[in-house]
């Protein structure tokens, strides 16, 4: 897929919708890896349900992406028949699950950011994006609450849970800056009131994160050298390993239906 030119509004909108849909799709797929393996039944249900919500969002965003692209690709075609370099998700969501604390760290950072993003998008000038955001924001508020509860519980828990929570956060801090990066593709969409100015979300995010860390008696957020590239298709090796089992069946049996 050629990089869309910012001068072609539909190509930019398509790319933007992939970014929104792929974030949800990849994290949703990651969370399903916990199914049957989580520490308790309640946690297993929580992670599976969050994954389900995210895959639901992805289906809607990628469905609109297919409409905008106008080449007959639906949400399934975009999810199952693109290779890793064509995915536009942030690097944070493709990180391996690690232990439960690392999964919670990733979820908390993502959901806290995504909640602010979707709140902004619920008034998008693109009606289809606004409707999805308005629907999803209520679900994501739940995700963010649940993850923050666990950050506090693990951080302010036992010596072992605290050590793991700190390790989990330390793995992920370097992927946070990418969440707030706009680029030339998004700029015209921001000016048209379709996209949210990502940089403007940072102060609110920092304040929320700071408050939860304090409640969890955890060290303040670290700002290591950031790693970026997901938005233009430069991914870690982890993404391919995630896509292989996800895409195997529809590629091995094209056109298979339930």
């Amino acid at each position: 897929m050629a990089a869309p030119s910012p001068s072609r509004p539909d190509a930019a909108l398509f790319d933007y919708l992939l970014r929104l849909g792929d974030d949800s799709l990849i994290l949703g797929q990651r969370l399903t890896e916990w199914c049957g393996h989580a520490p308790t039944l309640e946690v297993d249900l929580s992670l599976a349900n969050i994954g389900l919500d995210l895959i639901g969002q992805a289906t809607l965003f990628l469905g609109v992406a297919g409409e905008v692209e106008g080449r007959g690709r639906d949400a399934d075609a975009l999810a199952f028949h693109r290779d890793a370099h064509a995915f536009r998700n942030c690097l944070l969501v493709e990180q391996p699950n690690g232990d439960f604390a690392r999964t919670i760290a990733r979820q908390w950072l993502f959901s806290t950011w995504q909640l602010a993003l979707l709140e902004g998008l619920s008034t998008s000038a693109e009606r289809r994006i606004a409707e999805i955001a308005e629907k999803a924001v209520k679900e994501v508020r739940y995700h963010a609450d649940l993850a923050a509860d666990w950050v506090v519980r693990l951080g302010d828990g036992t010596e072992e849970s605290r050590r793991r929570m700190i390790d989990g956060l330390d793995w992920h801090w370097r992927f946070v800056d990418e969440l707030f990066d706009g680029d030339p593709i998004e700029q015209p969409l921001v000016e048209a009131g379709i996209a949210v100015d990502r940089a403007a979300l940072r102060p609110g995010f920092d304040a929320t994160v700071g408050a939860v860390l304090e409640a969890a008696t955890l060290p303040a957020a670290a700002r290591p050298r950031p790693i970026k590239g997901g938005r233009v298709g430069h991914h870690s090796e982890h993404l391919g390993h995630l896509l292989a089992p996800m895409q195997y069946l529809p590629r091995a049996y094209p056109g298979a239906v339930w």
Partner: protein
Amino acid sequence: MPPAIASLDGAAESRIMAALAQVPDPEIPVISIVDLGIVRGVRRAPPAILITPTYTGCPATHAINAAVRTALDEAGFVDVPIEQTLSPPWTTDWISEQGRAQLRAYGIAPPPPGAAAHTLRDADPAECPRCGSLDTQEVSRFGSTPCKALWRCLSCHEPFDRFKCH
């Protein structure tokens, strides 16, 4: 197949709604999809049944569409399509009074009317659907389906599902 209908009249709309009122929710079969509030109504022209999901990823959506299709076909509306609508989003405030009573009788604590504006964290404790006690406690924020949370009653010690205030 009969020719496509250009529009529906009031009588047809009533017959459709009556048919849909008989369609149970696939995961909580005690409540109909009309009482659950996910049937947004009938569009007369061009004819369509408007359905909204409770949660974006709810896996029951496909089963619901299939059940609605069957009900429409049996009522003689084979060429009336089903359309998904997202806005305004579904909230628990769309559940009817009758639906709330049915949930309670089934052992699921329904959300109080107006609860959609709150989050569960700040809401009053749920009323135990078995013994009516308010001495209850959340066990897990997610339950057996996306729309429910797990609670337990500290009076009768029974666990129960609570419809998430949403």
